[in-house]
């Protein structure tokens, strides 16, 4: 069945069950991936997957939901029945409705959908990449984590009010994590990830080069003294922090009492006037962009922080109604509709007179810690309390020398971090999770072994 046929099937089954109001979100995908080990194929994977999430409204306008992978006629009927039963437990205190924007026009970008290259081609390309990475430096002994994949999928949203949206996409991903070993030293590991619409769009050579350079750059390491340091966050690491604390801009989190913000936080000054942050799911560099969210609301660019102040929150249909605004296209379909950002873009505003513009990661000669990548986010972030304590990969720049930091954590408070931004470099970099320049923060605690 295609997505139109499934919609018809659901409509018929709902009529049969006398269910007047329903909607659904679905995803249908075909994925192929390979892994290699020293030139040999290790695991080759293919999967065909379908997931259907159905919501129904009962006579009291309470919502019930069911998720299933069975899209046969009987599977759909069973799902509708289960959702109807679940609607008896629907949330009476926070009603859910269709998004008022579910039929608005959506901005459909050039889909750039690619054709599958197939497992054999994936395998050949990954084998070659592994060989090149191993040959790039004598200390690189293995590439323990590697993979090349391509996915082809369709996402659908439809409801009983006549809304129907669908888009198809392709996406490919390459990751290479090398392990370097030298005598009398601890093994060091680093890597690189590249995304593309298809395998032909992935810059494999640059992925190999990045993985090699990063790994080698950590070979000469030293422990760092526990102290407070001037920090330069790489674009990737700053985006990691912003995403980890995105509950500050999340209306759902505010209503749930797990955000540092509250309903009245719009306009609150969080940082230097030089800081702008947007959520821009449709950005041309976002390979994973989706033109609509789980409730069918069109995706759009939204300013979250304007000149250091909170400008907007991200919303689903129900949170927008409670906040007396419109949905922003950030909903995830569920029994309790979730809200999450798409693609964060950080930039320097035109108001940057208070910045120390001499701080530039490529030229600054004073002492600072460069944080390349933050790890273990799930364990080290207390989003509801605003605190973090995270291990990181990075370097200490001191006396004109750069040395890899053996093992350390950076700890602090997100509000303190944002308030203590001392420079936002001009040049932005594209990462797999968004776009950001390098960001400098004064006086954050680092714990090391020394």
């Amino acid at each position: 069945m295609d997505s139109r046929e499934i919609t018809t099937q659901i409509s018929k089954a709902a009529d049969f069950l006398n269910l007047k109001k329903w909607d659904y979100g679905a995803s249908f995908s075909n994925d192929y991936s390979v892994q290699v080990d020293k030139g040999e194929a290790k695991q080759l994977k293919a999967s065909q997957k379908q997931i259907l999430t159905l919501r129904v409204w009962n006579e009291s306008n309470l919502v019930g939901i069911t998720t299933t992978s069975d899209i046969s006629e009987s599977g759909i009927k069973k799902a509708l029945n289960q959702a109807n039963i679940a609607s008896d437990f629907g949330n009476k205190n926070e009603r859910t409705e269709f998004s008022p924007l579910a039929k608005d026009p959506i901005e459909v970008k050039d889909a750039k959908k690619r054709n599958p290259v197939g497992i054999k081609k994936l395998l050949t390309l990954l084998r070659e990449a592994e060989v090149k990475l191993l040959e790039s430096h004598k200390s690189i002994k293995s590439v323990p984590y590697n993979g090349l994949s391509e996915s082809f999928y369709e996402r659908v949203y439809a409801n009983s009010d006549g809304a129907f949206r669908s888009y198809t996409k392709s996406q490919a991903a390459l990751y290479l994590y090398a392990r370097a070993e030298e005598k009398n030293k601890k093994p060091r590991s680093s890597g690189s990830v590249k995304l593309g619409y298809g395998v032909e769009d992935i810059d494999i050579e640059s992925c190999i080069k990045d993985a090699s350079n990063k790994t080698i750059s950590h070979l000469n390491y030293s422990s760092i003294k526990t102290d407070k340091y001037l920090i330069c966050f790489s674009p990737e690491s700053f985006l990691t922090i912003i995403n980890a604390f995105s509950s500050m801009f999340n209306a759902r989190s505010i209503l749930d009492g797990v955000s540092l913000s509250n309903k009245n936080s719009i306009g609150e000054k969080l940082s230097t006037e030089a800081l702008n942050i947007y959520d821009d799911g449709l950005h041309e560099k976002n390979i994973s962009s989706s033109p609509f969210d789980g409730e069918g609301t069109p995706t759009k660019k939204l300013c979250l922080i304007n000149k250091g102040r909170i400008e907007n929150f991200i919303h689903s249909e129900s949170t927008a109604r409670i906040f007396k605004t419109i949905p922003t296209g950030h909903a995830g379909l569920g029994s309790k509709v979730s809200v999450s950002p798409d693609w964060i873009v950080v930039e320097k505003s035109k108001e940057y007179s208070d910045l120390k513009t001499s701080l530039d990661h490529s030229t600054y000669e004073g002492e600072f810690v460069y944080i390349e990548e933050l790890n273990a986010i799930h364990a080290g972030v207390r989003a509801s309390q605003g605190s973090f304590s995270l291990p990181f990969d990075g370097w200490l720049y001191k006396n004109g020398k750069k040395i890899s930091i053996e093992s350390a954590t950076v700890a602090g408070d997100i509000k303190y971090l944002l308030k203590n931004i001392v420079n936002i470099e001009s040049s932005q970099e594209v990462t797999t999770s968004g776009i950001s320049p390098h960001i400098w923060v004064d006086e954050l605690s680092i714990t090391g072994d020394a």
Partner: protein
Amino acid sequence: MLSSQIKSNEIIFGSCNKDLLEEIIFYGIGLGADFIEIFIENTDNSSVLAEEDFITSVSPSFGRGAGIRIFKGTKDGFVSTNDLTKHGLMRSVSQAIEMLDITDNKREVFNGLNKHRDYSLSKKKWINEVPSIHEISEKLLVSTKSLKKNNKIITRKGSYSRNLQEVIIASSDGTYVSDIRLHQTVGLNVIASDAQYRSSGSRRFGSSGMPNEFRLWDHEKAANDVFESSMNMLYADYVDAGQMPVVLANKFGGVIFHEACGHLLETTQIERGTTPFENKLNEKIAHESVTAIDEGISEGSFGSLSVDDEGMEPEKSVLIKDGILKKFISDRAGELRTGHKRTGSGRRQNYSFAAASRMRNTYIAKGEHSKEDLINSISDGLYCKSMGGGSVGATGQFNFAVEEGYLIKNGKLTSPVKGATLIGEAKEVMPKISMCGNDLELAPGFCGSISGSVNVTVGQPHIKVDSITVGGR
């Protein structure tokens, strides 16, 4: 009974699928596979969320799918599908064969499936005893109400999830088993706030194969624990960073062994060359006070299973005995690629993952000391009463968040501290576990790794680590 005698062109749960499964395996072997395994799954899951004094989410889900894995030499091809018809399964076999590019004429022998071993027989009796959504909702609401102990508690949540998984596993070595697995987990969370101070508290409980366990769960005790923890931590200062001795509490304190050492004893880590213990079998890798076990047999424990996802009954594996490394945790691919015998540890989240060597109930065995002995032995250190999550990096460094910590001064527990992280490497920390308490207890958790998220138990008695890096401010 009649249905079991009908030849079907589709997998039917609760029926005999032997003929169809044999036909598919014969087909794969005929195309040149060395080994073929079929894992078929039917799930019926539910989750319920209570926030403050209301049920805010009820989420049922169900699904069916198959994962087919084919080995040729040490290579394997894995295909997953939602199509459980004969045509769909054979198409998946063909796809796996094609991926592996099998061209030789060597053909393995398949002698048909063994007699069906049905581990679900004794469980079918209790399927109807699983609590209803109504019953679950009522108890969750009582639980969240129990958390309303003062006005500093600003959010109260109770969550429950139930996974009912029916599996059929058949492979070309004759394995033919089926099972029903029931996992239930329930958790309570609070956030406390007073002016600029904030803290949180959480506890999670879980069981396998015990439908009444949720009914028996002592929600009052759980609510008291969570409340006390959040109140104790509300005004806590941040811990000062540094090297110091620590005492790790029992139950979820075992997460440190799970993450820091347990993962390095999985054969998948040997395959990747990422464990420092690869060539250390029968060598000392830990303090002599440490004996560590991984097993899947403790009745009702969250990581227990009647049969693993490759059709093998789980064994009790003594991984470390008195500090000496004795065994690795192994699955079929691990045995094939590293030579370590399978331990009944082939596990996966669902049909869309190939099984891998994964921990089950993993714990450090009890020692002879009391908790007080451990704390009294430290003049200046940290007591980690409740651990948060943790992770281990590609080169073995680990880190764990301490949710509830207290300073130890002159052998006594003193003020609560927050923001602590434990940082280290397994091979450096294991020899520093110098004292084990006599109060072994287990705690449930979810472990995410190569074959998805699986239910596990971590555990230990109170243990003392002589020196570890504590991250703070």
